[in-house]
């Protein structure tokens, strides 16, 4: 649940999603759900020559199960807050 909440805080930030088929899609995060399915707006694909079918696509829904990495700006993440939240969650689930 923590990572889901974390992704919710990234809403409206520009992120890059790398899929397991090596396709990298950059766009504005519009929504994320409990499976970490991702909805991106205003997308741009790295290496469009290899993925010509994506040229006419402007917003995309990515199934969570095919995501390899999500890259985001370092300033979008409050690591100390995230650390605290992780400890708190571990503590609460341990009870």
């Amino acid at each position, binding site marked *: 649940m923590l990572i889901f909440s974390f992704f919710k805080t990234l809403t409206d930030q520009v992120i890059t999603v790398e899929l397991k088929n090596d396709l990298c899609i950059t766009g504005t995060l519009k929504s994320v759900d*409990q499976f970490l399915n991702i909805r991106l707006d205003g997308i741009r694909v790295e290496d469009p020559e290899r993925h010509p079918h994506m040229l006419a696509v402007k917003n995309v829904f990515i199934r969570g199960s095919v995501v390899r990495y999500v890259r985001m700006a370092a300033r979008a993440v409050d690591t100390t807050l995230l650390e605290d939240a992780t400890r708190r969650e571990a503590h609460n689930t341990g009870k």
Partner: protein
Amino acid sequence: MDALIPFTTSGSLVDLVDKKVLVVLRDGRKLTGVLRSYDQFANFLLESTVERLHYKFEYSDVDIGVLLIRGENVVALGEIDLIAEDNLPFVEIPLDEMRDKLAAQEKRRERDNIVKDKVLGSLGFVSDRHEGDAY
């Protein structure tokens, strides 16, 4: 609608219903059609579905019709910008020609892979490219 169920698959996909969409499947297929229904597993029901085959800047279409896609096979679902679609620098070629080109490409790739496997094999690496897809 969006305000009521903001963080569910259903909440995020309502606005794509009845739009022309592109669905990318795990086996690399690209399908375009009109999204008629979906659920929380990302199962999709497409109408007037067409499979598009690409080879460099050429393409061909194969008519499929109504298609229910099981969610586990889905990689991504994109809304097609109809204006951008009209301005793409692609040319349509006959399906037979496309199939020949893709078969030739597959043959070349297979030949390259055999060479690669031989070289890696001689260095002690085992190829696992025959095991499933990238996912």
